[in-house]
């Protein structure tokens, strides 16, 4: 198989980059070792679109964060991805910390934020915005341009758009080694050999390992685990903004934020780990998360947890994003060290990678005439009015069969998710695309039904349906 460009890694970075490249007459492969897009860090993070005052001035992070956040609303709108500009608050608990808020405000200005997008609030103003805030809070930095986005939905949407425009998505296709011969990369993968003229390395925590395959030893990723609790929708309005704690010598504390779907996310912790392939959460993770969260909002309680999970930050020793042509081979572009705010920056990163590719590409990139920047808008029964539901079911009865009771997801939506351009192949894939199984019963009720639908639509026996590919089987042989 031959491609002009091979993108390694189908996280938010690889997928948005693929979408960007799909505007051009290029043969592009999006190569992923997992069974789906968004199966690593891009599925397990805070989902915050940071305003951009946090990053150190002058760094790539600072520039791409501010630029990415500016572009986010537009990208999400085009791709039918929920994005809400709800604003963020960095909460101070002492006058000393209020000083830090002023520094953050100043840094925001230096990084290029509008002065009127930020405001330092006293306690009274803070309580008005956040009635449940701790009595110990003395003030906060309000940042109006911060927002929340669903990170996996953005990734899926970007990949679907790319696929609609001709990008080939290759799953279960881990890259094991790379040769460079006759001006061509030859990737040895789990699915055989793939040749490509250019490589974009967007392999997340493994981006250093991929770089080493071409002899580039300049990157050094140490994974850092972040652990979260996700709370039931019944406590969905305990906060109205993204609530950060003012950073101290003790660390950053955890954030509390609404999610676009009406839950509340609390976390992350920071734990240095050595296994890049396991985001297993540690014992006491939840109690640590809540201990820290209660500093900001005392009423928040572990009792409302519906699930917990971990994600791995791709932390590079330089603490900055590493984006550019490799010194070992200029046709190999690294997009590495994409730790937070990688999601917020992702639209800008994808644009930047395109610029770099253009600068090294042999010849001109030619635009396609029929490029479609969007995707088919997914049906979301749970968000529809009764009138819309009535019409929808009248058109297609499959939308009248509710499979996930907690999140009100219909059979029609699950079938759509499986048959979309980058379709779901496993239970977690259906879950990320439709929310079936993401509610308070955590698939206790719908799990078997989702498996039946996957089995039927994909035409494979039900005991071959996995949770997330590989050996994550759910059922064994038939009963006696």
């Amino acid at each position: 198989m031959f491609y002009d460009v091979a993108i390694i890694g189908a996280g938010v970075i690889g997928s948005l980059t693929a979408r960007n490249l799909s505007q051009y007459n290029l043969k592009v492969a999006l190569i992923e070792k997992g069974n789906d897009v968004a199966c690593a860090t891009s599925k397990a993070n805070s989902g915050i679109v940071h305003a951009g005052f946090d990053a150190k001035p002058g760094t790539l992070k600072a520039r791409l964060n501010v630029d990415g956040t500016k572009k986010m609303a537009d990208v999400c709108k085009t791709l039918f991805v929920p994005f809400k500009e709800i604003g963020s608050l960095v909460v101070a608990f002492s006058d000393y910390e209020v000083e830090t808020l002023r520094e953050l405000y100043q840094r925001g200005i230096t990084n290029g934020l509008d002065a009127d997008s930020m405001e330092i609030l006293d306690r009274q103003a803070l309580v008005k915005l956040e009635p449940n805030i701790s009595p110990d809070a003395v003030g906060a930095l309000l940042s109006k341009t911060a927002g929340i986005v669903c990170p996996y939905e953005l990734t899926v949407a970007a990949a679907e758009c790319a696929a609609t425009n001709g990008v080939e998505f290759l799953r279960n296709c881990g890259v094991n080694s790379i040769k460079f011969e006759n001006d061509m990369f030859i990737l040895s993968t789990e699915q055989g050999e793939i040749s490509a003229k250019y490589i974009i390395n967007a392999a997340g925590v493994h981006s250093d390992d991929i770089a080493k395959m071409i002899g580039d030893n300049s990157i050094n990723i140490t994974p850092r685990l972040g652990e979260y609790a996700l709370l039931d929708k019944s406590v969905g309005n305990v906060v109205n903004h993204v609530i950060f704690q003012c950073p101290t010598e003790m660390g950053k504390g955890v954030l509390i934020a609404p999610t676009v779907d009406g839950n509340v996310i609390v976390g992350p912790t920071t734990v240095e780990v050595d296994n890049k392939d396991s985001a297993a959460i540690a014992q006491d993770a939840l109690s640590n998360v809540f201990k820290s969260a209660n500093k900001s909002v005392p009423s928040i309680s572990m009792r409302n947890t519906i699930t917990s999970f971990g994600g791995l930050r791709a932390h590079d020793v330089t603490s900055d994003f590493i984006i550019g042509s490799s010194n070992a081979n200029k046709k190999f572009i690294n997009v590495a060290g994409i730790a937070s705010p990688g999601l917020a920056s992702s639209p800008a990163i994808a644009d930047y990678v395109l610029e770099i590719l253009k600068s090294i590409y042999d010849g001109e990139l030619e635009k396609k005439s029929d490029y479609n920047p969007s995707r088919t808008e997914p049906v979301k029964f749970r968000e529809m009015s009764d009138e819309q539901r009535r019409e929808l079911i009248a058109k297609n009865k499959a939308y009248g069969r509710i499979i996930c009771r907690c999140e009100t997801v219909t059979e029609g939506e699950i079938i759509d998710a499986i048959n979309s351009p980058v379709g779901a192949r496993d239970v977690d894939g259906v879950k990320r695309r439709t929310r079936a199984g993401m509610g308070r019963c955590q698939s206790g009720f719908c799990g078997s039904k989702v498996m039946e639908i996957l089995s039927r639509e994909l035409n494979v026996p039900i005991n071959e349906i996995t949770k997330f590919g590989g050996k994550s089987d759910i059922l064994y042989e038939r009963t006696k």
Partner: protein
Amino acid sequence: MNSTLKYDLVVIGGGPAGMAAALEAKKNGVGKIIILERAETLGGILEQCIHTGFGLHYFGEELSGPEYAHKFIELVEQSDIDVKTDTMVISISKERMVTAVNNQDGFIQIDATAVILAMGCRERARGALDIAGSRASGVMTAGAAQKFVNIDGYMPGKKIVILGSGDIGLIMARRMTLEGAQVKMVCELMPYSGGLTRNIVQCLDDFDIPLKLSCTVIEVHGTERVEGITIAQVDENRNVIDGTQEFVECDTLLLSVGLIPENELSKQIDIDMDPITSGPVVNEMRQTSLPGVFACGNVLQVHDLVDYVTTESQIAGLGAAKYISNPNNDDSRYAFTKGGDGVRYIVPQKVNINSKEEIKLYFRVADVYLKSKFVVSVGDEVLIEKRKQKFAPGEMENATLTLEMLEKIKENDEIVISIKER
């Protein structure tokens, strides 16, 4: 279908509770009744409980879950009660407008004179537990496993550990063993089992499956499929005792860690809820705080015996029939029930002291009590005293208020049940 349907009684949920309530309402003269059930068939959770042990109290014979359910399904079929299966109720309003969807009629709206909530309950999932580790496959609720084995006919595991010794956990321990799996142990956080004694004997002891009390699962190992778990002993405050951690190799962890009444619909109409039962607050006819809306079965309180579900639901069906025949005739004056020492909750939470019938109170104790008694009292006056060899949280108790006793109770009195040593 665009027009609104009109029914005297809409029953939400076609499990044993919904069916018994509908039949009783029919018997008492209610005209148009419809049962809405989201599963493909009537029967509720019983359809997957193929073990026996149902109906001992009510029919005086040992039936399997489906057998018990089918007795009711037949009666419903013989009656003129309408049934819509594969139909999910998605909302109700305070005016008792019920909205449901299915793939036959599409979108359905029903204007009901009375509504009976009989939605049953769901199992508590892993999220609520602080179990460390990965998201590997092989962790599921015991009820989900039961469905895979009994309905779909597939094994969800080979080497199994069960967390939680409630009845579902115990029954699944036996079921999986009979299907050839190795059930390594059942771990229970509390110092006693939450299940019925007969299930401990018949499901664990008879198969030599160890029951580890004051023991919990603290970590799940494995990145794709579960490869093992770490268990540990806990102290009396349920904190892990350091040094007791132990690795157990297994490919499956089944959770049987409690049931939660499914009251999302009830919350839409703002009826009063009991924080302990997680079900609605009801009077002796199982009417909720919103007149015309009744609740029975597992949606009201988690039952271990379906026989009690049936009895409770018949009361609700009768209550609904009375309401429908005369919606505005309510001369109720209420006294309130309250769990005293050792009693976790009582259903009903309030009783009409003008009731012309005696009233049975159902309650659960908070701990295991040996050689004790329960006492029902109002103020200083003791109404009932009953001794028992053993009280356990897993077994529901009851006490009957006779008409004589009701006469002694005044409006707004507190009827207290407590456990005392004898």
